[in-house]
């Protein structure tokens, strides 16, 4: 009877561990982690470039105000989701430096696109040249990092 009870306890413990492990964020294998990083960086490049194009078009008075705002708002929301999902991952230990760099760049991208959205909403035209320069510089860094990941 004692043996059966112990077996049940073990089975329950194993079940709890299995269920709990299913509820946590996985640590992907290094290759899968690199692929996820590259995907997140590629998405960031796309949304940073979108914000830059919209801002340039606004500065040249080539785009309708609501259109510019909605386009950057959508980029901001999508990028926020992408960065959030990436940061939830647990990087393999050997890739810690890459994770640090990726999370810094992705965080910068998300912040800058948010700033762009706010500047467009407030129509802070004085901020546009500085933001365009920052977006351009961040694009270059992201593209360089994307090449490192390839």
């Amino acid at each position, binding site marked *: 009877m004692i043996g059966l009870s112990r077996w049940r306890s073990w089975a329950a413990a194993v079940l709890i561990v299995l269920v709990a492990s299913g509820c946590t964020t996985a640590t992907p294998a290094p290759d899968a982690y690199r692929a996820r990083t590259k*995907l997140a960086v*590629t*998405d960031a*490049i*796309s949304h940073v*470039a*979108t914000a*830059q*194009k*919209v801002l340039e*078009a606004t500065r040249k*008075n*080539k*785009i*309708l*105000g*609501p*259109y510019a*705002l*909605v*386009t950057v708002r*959508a*980029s901001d929301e*999508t990028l926020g989701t992408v960065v959030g999902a990436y940061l939830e991952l647990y990087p393999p230990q050997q890739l810690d430096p890459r994770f640090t760099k990726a999370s810094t760049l992705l965080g910068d991208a998300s912040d800058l696109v948010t700033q762009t959205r706010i500047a467009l909403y407030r129509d802070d035209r004085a901020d546009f040249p500085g933001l365009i320069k920052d977006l351009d510089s961040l*694009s270059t860094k992201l*593209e360089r990092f994307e090449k490192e990941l*390839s």
Partner: protein
Amino acid sequence: MKKLFAVALGILTAIGGFVDIGDLVTNAQVGSRFGMSLAWVVVVGVLGICVFAEMSGRVAAVSGRATFDLIRERLGPRLGLANLLASMTVTLLTFVAEIGGIALALALATSVYEFLWVPFTALAVWLVLWRAKFSLMENVFGLLGLALVVFAVALWQLGPDWGDLWHQAGTVAKPGSEDWSTYAYYGVALFGAAMTPYEVFFFSSGGVEEHWSSRSIATMRSNVFIGFPLGGLLSLSIAGCAAVTLLPAGISVDTLGQVGLPVALALGKIGLAIALLGFFAATFGAACETGLSLGYSIAQYFGWQWGKYVRPREASRFHVVILISTVLAVAVLLTTIDPVLVTEFSVVFSAVALPLTYFPILVVANDPDYMGEHTNGRLANFLGSVYLVVVLVASIAALPLMIWTKMGQ
């Protein structure tokens, strides 16, 4: 003169009505990631839709009955039901995407969140389907859809290297950063967007609504063989704009706002306003077509009175189907699902459902009991058979590619 006007109007509305949310999004996505290297798929898709639209239009003109009406009678209730379920699912998904597309276009014009627009746009679509005359609805949105010609003007204004674009279009190649599986996935999605099943149902049922007869076949053919390819050129110009502007900047299209960005860069505010009008007309027109197609399919299968050529009271069940579909579409969109994501699903599932839609049309168009002297000739049968093989391949490949590439990631 009156006939010439009717032909010209038919061609213009066919061009303007060709592009819907699936074409807008998929062509821009493909252009921004693969340049013009998938242009051949648009050409293959447009030829395919011409082949089957001509057949279904001819069936409607000769028999005076629409496709679903005959499919059940000719192939039996079981195959008819399979056809109904497959096409209904895809058409409902497309209807949801189109209503979402209208809301997105209005959000871009006003900066009010798209989800707030959803109930109003759905109500407007339903009111048009309930009250407006068929010809008025078709002509107004078809003609307004011509605003999308602004993409062709923008492409010309952007001054691309035409030789390079031609080279891309003539080569089956992909950028180094993309996989062949992703290339194939977008090829299938583009094909599904060009050959959407609802187009033939709407076309043939529309023929019955407009009382086509054998004498209408020449006009119908001019609409199909001139209007649809020119509509296909609009699709290519959307892809071209994305290839010239977005691809070099590393922008891959996720939102409708990104689709119109090249027009703003090339033509400024006026161009963008015209593009927005085009987005609105294309999605509203397609929402009406898909909404009607849902009513047509079910009513024709069950043998109910259908159509807008009779009073709503006389086709009450047909209108109830449209009303329920509209409420369903609103319910789906108010979950705050991204309409662009719904569009991506709808074009892939269109590809899955293609054989079930097009095989019965080929069978009915070959039946001399219905078609008499207008039964398919050798060329129509050859092209129809070739396309059945192509749609079968696309249908089988669509879901595995979607899963394998994680929807083109």
